[in-house]
C-alpha cells in the first residue's frame, strides 16, 4: 500500500516537472509562432508584414466561397498590412458569428437561401450589414444529364415532363409509378414541390437529404446511363465532370415573385437568378475602416471567379495558391478595390 502511494506521488512530481519544462519551452516558442490560432489555416501565401487584430473571414464549404476569401486575404495582408484569419464554418453558423462579431465578414451569400437571416440580422437586429454585391450570379434550376435531352429533346423544357410516359423514365422504387424529382439538401431554397403541383407534372418530389447524396445520385445515373431529374445549380464543380442541361421552366413573373414572398404555395416559375452578396459585422467599420472599405468595394465577375475556382477544381491547387496566382496576374482588378 505504502509503496503504491509513494509511486503515484513520484508520478505526479514527474509530471509536474515535465510540464514545467514544457511550459518553459512553450513560452519562447509562442513568440516565434505569432500565436497562430488553430482555427486559422496556415496559408502559405506570400509573407507580408502584418500587425494588429486579425480580420476573420468566413469560408463556407464550397470552392467559390474559399477563393473569394483567399483573394481578399492576399490583398489585405500585403496591401493593408492587416492579418486575415480564415474561419471554415457552416453557412448557417456564419450568421451567428457575424452577429457577435466573432466573424468579421463573409464574401459570398446566396440570397435565395438566407432571406430569413437577412431579415433577422440585417433588417431587424442590425448587427450585420449588407456590403454590396460580389458580382457573380448564380442560378438554381432543374437539371438532367445531357444524354437525357439527346435522347428525348422534348425534355429540354418542362412541358416534356407533362407526358406520363416520359416522366416515368425517372421512376424509382421511392417514386413508384411517377417520375422521381430529386432534391438534395432540404435546407437549400426549394419551390420544386409547388412547381410540380402547380404545373401538374406527374412527378414525385423525393428529398435525397444532402448535397453528398445528390452528387452520388448523379454518379449513379451516369454509371447506369439512367435518367435523373434534380434541383442543381451553377456554379458547381460537378459541371466540370458531368454535362448537365438545365430544363427550361416558365419565366419568372411578378405573380411568382409575389407567391415566393407570401409563401402561399402558388409558385409555378423558374428560380430567379441569385445575385451573390457580401455581408459584414456592423462592428467591422469601427474595427478597421480600410479593410471595411476594401471588402465593400471588392467585386469579381462571374468569369473571374470561375477562373480562380477552376485552378482549384480543375488543376488541383489549394484555394490559397489559386488566389495568389490570380492576385499576381490581375493587379489592375484588385487595385481598384483599394482606391
Amino acid at each position: 500500500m505504502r509503496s503504491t502511494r509513494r509511486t503515484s506521488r513520484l508520478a505526479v512530481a514527474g509530471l509536474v516537472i515535465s510540464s514545467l519544462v514544457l511550459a518553459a519551452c512553450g513560452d519562447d516558442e509562442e513568440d516565434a509562432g505569432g500565436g497562430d490560432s488553430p482555427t486559422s489555416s496556415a496559408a502559405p501565401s506570400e509573407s507580408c508584414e502584418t500587425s494588429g487584430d486579425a480580420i476573420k473571414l468566413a469560408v463556407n464549404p464550397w470552392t467559390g466561397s474559399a477563393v473569394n476569401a483567399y483573394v481578399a486575404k492576399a490583398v489585405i495582408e500585403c496591401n493593408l498590412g492587416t492579418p486575415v484569419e480564415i474561419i471554415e464554418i457552416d453557412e448557417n453558423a456564419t450568421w451567428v458569428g457575424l452577429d457577435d462579431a466573432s466573424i468579421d465578414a463573409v464574401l459570398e451569400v446566396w440570397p435565395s437561401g438566407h432571406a430569413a437571416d437577412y431579415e433577422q440580422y440585417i433588417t431587424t437586429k442590425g448587427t450585420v450589414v449588407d456590403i454590396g454585391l460580389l458580382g457573380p450570379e448564380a442560378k438554381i434550376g432543374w437539371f438532367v444529364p445531357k444524354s437525357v435531352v439527346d435522347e428525348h429533346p422534348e425534355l429540354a423544357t418542362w412541358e416534356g415532363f407533362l407526358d406520363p410516359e416520359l416522366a416515368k423514365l425517372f421512376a424509382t422504387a421511392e417514386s413508384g409509378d411517377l417520375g422521381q424529382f430529386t432534391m438534395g439538401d432540404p435546407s437549400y431554397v426549394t419551390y420544386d414541390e409547388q412547381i410540380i403541383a402547380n404545373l401538374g407534372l406527374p412527378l414525385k418530389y423525393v428529398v435525397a437529404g444532402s448535397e453528398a447524396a445528390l452528387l452520388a445520385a448523379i454518379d449513379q445515373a451516369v454509371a447506369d446511363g439512367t435518367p435523373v431529374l434534380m434541383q442543381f445549380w451553377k456554379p458547381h464543380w460537378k459541371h466540370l465532370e458531368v454535362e448537365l442541361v438545365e430544363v427550361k421552366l416558365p419565366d419568372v413573373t411578378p405573380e411568382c415573385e409575389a407567391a415566393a414572398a407570401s409563401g402561399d404555395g402558388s409558385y409555378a416559375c423558374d428560380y430567379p437568378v441569385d445575385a451573390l452578396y457580401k455581408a459584414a459585422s456592423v462592428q467591422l467599420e469601427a474595427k478597421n475602416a480600410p479593410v471595411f472599405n476594401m471588402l465593400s468595394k471588392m467585386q469579381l465577375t462571374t468569369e473571374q471567379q470561375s477562373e480562380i475556382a477552376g485552378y482549384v477544381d480543375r488543376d488541383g491547387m489549394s484555394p490559397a495558391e489559386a488566389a495568389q496566382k490570380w492576385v499576381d496576374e490581375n493587379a489592375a482588378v484588385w487595385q481598384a478595390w483599394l482606391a
Partner: protein
Amino acid sequence: MASVDTLPPAHLEAEAVAKRQRERLLGFGVFAALLVAAWVVGHEVPDWMDLDVQGWAQDRYTWTIQNSDTHWLFTVFLNPASDFLNWAVEHVFDLLEALRWPGVVALTAMIGWRTGGPRAALAGGLAMLAVGAVAPWDKAMLTLSIMVVAVVMALVVGVPLGVIAARSDRAEKIIRVVLDTAQVMPVYVYFAPLLTGFGIGYPPAVMATFIYALPPATRLTNLGIRQVPVVLNEVGQSFGTTSWQQLLKVQLPVARKSILLGLNQVIMMAFAIVVLASLFGPSDLGRLVLNALQKQEVGEAFAAGIGIVLLAVALDRISTGDRRPLPRWMPTPPQWGRRVWLALGIGTVVAAVVCARAFELDVLPSWMLIDAASPIDDAVDWVQNNLRKDVPVIGGTQAISDFLVVHIIDPIQRFLLWLPWLAVVTGVAFVGWLSRGWRLAAGVALCLVLIGFMGTVPGAGGRKPLWDEAMNTLSQVIVAIVLAVLIAFPLGVWAGRSDRVERVLKPFLDLAQVLPQFVYLIPVVFLFSAGRAAGVVACVVYAIPPLIRLTALGLREVPHAPREAATSFGATPRQELLHVQLPLARKAILLGVNQTVLMVLATVIIAALVGAGGLGLLAYTAAAKPNVNLGQGMAGGLSIVFLAIMLDRITQAWGRDPDTSRT
C-alpha cells in the same frame, strides 16, 4: 434467480395465478374495446390537438437572438461558460502542440503503461502514431483537445449523476428521461440554440459532444453500483461504514469494471460526433471530412475519418486498463521495480519532447505518412462497381434496396398510416401492457399521444399532421431494429464464445461506432439509392455494435459455477449455451437490444441525409433555417425522443423479471 428465492407458498401461488388470469382477461377486454373506440372516433389526428410546441420553441429562439447581447442569462452565465470552454480547449491544444508529436505519442504510451501495462502502452502509442500517419497532425490534435475537454466534462457530470441514479429509483427514472433525450435528440435541433448560447468555435462543439457523450457515463455507473452484490453492501454496513464510505470504499471499486466500460463508451460516443461538432467552426478532422464530402472525395473523407477512429482507439486503449501481458512473440519486459519503470517512462516523454523541440519535429516526416485515401478510393470504387448489380443470388445492393422499399418499408408505413391514429396508440399500449402491465401501457401511450400533440408540418398539398411523418419514421425504425438484431445477436453469441472472434470483431465494431457516418454517406447512396432503404442501412451499421458487445460481455460474465454444473450433468455446448449461458446473460443482452433501439433512433437524423425523410428531415431543417424552422425541428426532434422512450421502455421491460412487480 431472484424469483426462486421469493417463491410464495403453494396456496397463495394458485390464488395469484387465478388473479392473473382474471387480470389478463380484463386487459384483453379493455384493449379490444379501446380498439373499437379508436376505429370509431380516432381516424385522423384532430386539429385541436396541438400544444403549439413549435410556436413556443420558435418564440424562445427569436427571444435568444434578440437578447443575446444584454440578458443576464448570457452575460452572467453563458458567456463566461463559453470563455471557460474556449480557454480549456486552447490550453489543452497548446500543451499538445508544445509536446510535439513525439511527446504526445510517448505520453500516450506512458499513460497506457500506468493504467494497464506494457500492452496498453504499446497499443495506445502505436494508435497515436498512426493518427499522424493518416491525418494532418495539427488538425488531429485540435480534435483531440475538444474531445478531451468534452470527455472530462462528461465524466465529471456523468459519474455523480450515475451515483445519484443508483441510490434512488425515482431519481433514476427522471435521469433516464434526460439521458434518453440527450442521446437521441438530434444535434441539428439544438445546433442553432447552442450557437446563440455559446457563440461559434470550440465552446458549442464541446457542448454538443458533451451532451451526446454524457449518457453512457451515467448509465454504466448506475448499472455498476446497482450490480454490487447485496452481500458486499451488507458486510460494509455491518462494519458501520457511513453512506459515503460505503460508496467510495465498496460500491465504486466493485463497480469499477462497469464504470470503465462507461468511460470507453463515453469516448466512443464523443468521437462519433466529431464531424457534426466541426459544423460549429473548429478546423479539425471533422471539417476535413465535410470538405472532402463536398468535393465527393470519398477516400479523403475516409482517411480523415480513420484518423478520428485511431484517436478514439488510442484513448480507449489507455483508458480501459488492459492488463493482459504482451503477445507471446514479443520480448517480455524486464522485471524492474515500478519506480524504475516510472522514471524510465517520464524520462522517455521528456526526452521525446526535448528531441522533438530541438529538431523541430512539428509534423511526422514524410516517410512515415500513409496515403490512405487512394487505396480506399479504389476499394470504394470496387464495391460500388461490383456490389450494386449482377451479384449472384442476392442480385446486388440495388435489388436489396428496391425490395426493402417496395415489399417491407412501404407496406408497413402504409399500414401504420391506414390505421386510425388511436388504434396505433392502443396497439402500442397493448404491447406495453403485455410487457409489463398497466403503468407501462399508459406511459408508452402517452408518448404516442404527445406526438399527436405536436401539430402540423408542411407537406405536399398543404400542412398535414406531424403524426404522418412519425409513422414514416417508425416504419423505418422497426425495420432497422429487426435487421440490426438479426445481424448482431448471432455475432454477439459467437464473439462471447470465442476469444478469437471477439478480437477480430473488435476493431470493426470500433470502426462502425466511431467512423463518422458522413464518410460513408456517398457509398451508401450510390449502393442503395437515396431513399428509405439507404436510411435503414445507415441505422443498422451504427446500431449493431452495442448489441454485439453486450451479448458477448453478458455471455462472458456468466459465472463459472452454473456452467460447470451444466457440463458435469452432461450438457452439450449447445445446451449449455441455450439453457444456461443465454438465460443468465439475458439482462446484458436485453440491455444490448435496448441500446440498439436507442442507436437506431439516434441515427434517424443521419438517415435523413441519405433520403429517409420523416422526423429526421424535420429536425435537420431546424439547423439550416432556425429563424423559420426551429419550431418544426424541435417538434420533430421531440417526437424522435418520444418514439425512443416508448421503444426503450418496452424493451427494458423485457429485461426485467416478469414477477417482481406488475403495477
